[in-house]
């Protein structure tokens, strides 16, 4: 005697065909099990520095950014985080997920890290107390 006192309801999504089944997707899972999808994202302390910039760039282009534009924006975000965040390194890795010539998805994580161009000339003119 062990009834299960729930009435489950199951929903389904229609199966998509062709390229539309490979929609670009960015999903986030936070520490406590909350999740959401976005078109652009910065996590950690970067969410204070760069979220605004990333989102307004995506909106400005109506989601139609070119790849090299996207790379420039992401580099800018990384640069800001390197200047402002004391827990950031000046080397970065990029991963790209797109469709290949045959229309099937491919994900590439660049094996080599690249370094950011930064300029610290201003530091000579900064005075005050440092921690």
């Amino acid at each position: 005697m062990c009834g299960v006192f729930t009435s489950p309801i199951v929903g389904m999504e229609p199966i998509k065909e062709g390229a539309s089944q490979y929609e670009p997707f960015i999903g986030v899972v936070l520490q406590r099990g909350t999740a959401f999808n976005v078109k652009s994202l910065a996590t950690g302390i970067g969410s204070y520095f760069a979220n605004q910039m990333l989102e307004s760039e995506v909106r400005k282009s109506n989601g139609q950014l070119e790849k090299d534009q996207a790379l420039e924006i992401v580099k800018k975000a990384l640069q800001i985080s390197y200047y402002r965040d004391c827990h950031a390194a000046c080397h970065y890795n990029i991963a790209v997920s797109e469709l290949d010539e045959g229309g099937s998805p491919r994900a590439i994580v660049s094996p080599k890290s690249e370094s950011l161009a930064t300029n610290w000339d201003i530091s000579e003119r900064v005075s005050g107390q440092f921690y």
Partner: protein
Amino acid sequence: MTASSVYAICYMDGVMLACDSGAFQGGTSRYKGVNRLYRLNSRCVLAFSGDWADFQFIQNLVERRQIKLQHADPDLEMTPKMVQSYLCMFFYSRRSKLDPLWDTIVVAGR
């Protein structure tokens, strides 16, 4: 061992993920050449900010799940949506045990 921010952006024909390659122990820069991006399959890339060890644990879980799926059909690949909802449930169950995973995971792909 923790790591800082992850950046992700959708563009015309895909998704781009970027993270810096530093791992820190408290305020000390401990490792400088860490790749924080993990390619699960041809559809899905994971990145983390937060605890590195917890991410390695998650990496292990998700990879096992992918292999298990391929026992049924070698062509099956977990979609980013599948990975996200799995991790969401998993993170929630861990926080309900008062033992949360110290990570923010970004799942990106097509």
